[in-house]
């Protein structure tokens, strides 16, 4: 269902019209939503993706194991280290080795900072979807700067880190990193309190997002929601607790869930997860063990198949790797969280009545990232 012919347009009766939102629209990425509406009530939604398919799974078949981290990272632009972590976890499991403990803690710090960077961006877009003349979006963009500069001090790049490799991480913490990170954490905690006052507890924001896009608990499990969208419907599922990786087993944190399953809850889950991430980073900085940060790994990976998952900012990301003993993989299959989340909006008009003006708050609260869905 792409471009409609004149006959199809005339078939619509009752004053309905089909409105295409996209592929250029205020969210990042290209994707189209085709909405059948009569001006106010929405009868049918269809999502059209595939504009940014790059064929990453095929590219990886021609890259050696270490080289393959680079295209994997560029699959998603915001939480890049989670994707690399999934691939590295799969390789390490096939090789049967484990990274040294100091490397695990440094990996945790990089992953959690990435989660903060991604969540602030998504929350800014959620605020912009309620037509909030981009003030909040620019505040969140400005407040990511301390973390982006910390990442540049540590790894050398602002978003495409290429830092997590099979065997550990590429370099140790630079001099003075710990004090600067603590300052950034203190600043961000105050900023989160300001966000709660000025934005989450804002009467007009609540009136736009409460009771909008309610996905009940059983339907969320049945339709396959992922990540914060699932946790906002009351399901306590988090890969960091179910199958721990990096240093999560030794750190102490809780899973964030919410009871009302609407768009407001999905925004609230993200804000609370940011508080939890700040705690995790502080604990990791305080309890870091000494030791080496990298082990050498052999070039060829033995035969086998493995499925590795991580909890990225958008949900659970899984990588299925098949290796046949060479220095390149035989087949890689990526299961992306946004692919499952985007199609939730197609099922919503069947169970409740949504209006045309509700489509942006619902859609942006599911955190759709078309680059992630298209791979």
């Amino acid at each position, binding site marked *: 269902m792409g471009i409609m012919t004149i006959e199809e347009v005339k078939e619509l009766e009752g004053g309905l019209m089909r409105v295409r939102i996209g592929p250029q629209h205020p969210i990042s990425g290209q994707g189209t939503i085709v909405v059948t509406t009569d001006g106010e009530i929405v009868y049918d939604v269809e999502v059209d993706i595939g504009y940014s398919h790059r064929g990453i799974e095929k590219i990886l078949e021609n890259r050696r194991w270490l*080289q393959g981290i680079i295209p994997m990272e560029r699959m998603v632009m915001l939480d890049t280290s989670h994707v690399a972590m999934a691939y590295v976890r799969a390789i390490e499991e096939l090789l049967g080795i484990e990274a040294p403990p100091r490397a695990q803690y440094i990996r945790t710090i990089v992953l959690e900072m990435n989660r903060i960077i991604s969540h602030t961006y998504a929350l800014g877009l959620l605020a912009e979807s309620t037509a909030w003349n981009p003030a909040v979006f620019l505040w969140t963009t*400005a407040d990511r700067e301390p973390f982006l500069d910390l990442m540049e001090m540590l790894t050398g790049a602002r978003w495409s880190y*290429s830092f997590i490799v099979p065997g550990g991480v*590429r370099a140790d913490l630079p001099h003075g990193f710990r004090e600067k990170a603590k300052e950034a954490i203190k*600043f961000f905690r105050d900023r989160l309190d*300001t966000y709660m*006052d000025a934005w989450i507890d804002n009467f007009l924001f609540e009136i736009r997002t409460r009771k909008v896009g309610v996905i009940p608990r059983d339907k969320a499990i049945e339709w396959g929601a992922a990540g914060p969208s699932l946790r906002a419907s009351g399901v306590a599922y988090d890969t960091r607790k179910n199958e721990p990786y990096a240093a999560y087993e030794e750190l102490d944190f809780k899973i964030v869930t919410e009871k009302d399953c609407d768009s407001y809850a999905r925004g609230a889950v993200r804000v609370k997860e940011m508080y939890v991430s700040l705690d995790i980073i502080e604990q990791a900085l305080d309890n870091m063990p000494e030791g080496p940060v990298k082990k050498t790994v052999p070039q060829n990976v033995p035969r086998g198949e493995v499925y590795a998952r991580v909890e990225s900012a958008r949900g659970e990301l899984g990588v299925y790797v098949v290796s046949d003993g060479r220095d390149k993989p035989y087949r890689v299959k990526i299961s992306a969280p946004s692919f499952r989340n985007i199609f939730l909006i197609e099922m919503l008009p069947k169970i409740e009545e949504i209006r045309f003006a509700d489509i942006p708050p619902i859609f942006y609260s599911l955190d759709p990232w078309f680059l992630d869905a298209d791979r």
Partner: protein
Amino acid sequence: MGKSKSLLSRIVVPVVEVAKHNIKPPMTHKYPFERQKGFERTRGRHVLYIDKCIGCGVCAWICPVNAIKMVEVEGSKYTHPRIDYGRCCYCGLCVEYCPRRALVHTPIVEVTSESRDDLIYDPKKLSVKPNIKEILPELKYELEPVIDAKYGIRYIRRRVT
């Protein structure tokens, strides 16, 4: 979420919190008159030390996007790398695996030209150290970011010498 507040405070407090942003310093860089100084590990354009390079070819072997090719250079008995900046993704693997440390990063990220062929830097061009004043002639200040608990980032402006 959190404690439930009254209706009046949910309408009035956001306006007050927004108005408090008037006293925050703005975070705009007036590029190209000011530029943020890169950090030590920033991965920018490369510099090749031709006398150290032995032509082993590890950089070309490990580059994930096939941006490096070893070519002959007159006046040297080894082959040296030629980097295509149209393809380079600044990942840093070639710098990390060079056995003689002949290829290093500089914090200059401005690599521009007017045609695709000019972006291919042969070894002689790679060995010239870039000077930021020649790339940006209008540059006057350099900003160094300092992370601070009250403002987030504060920039220290210094005149460029």
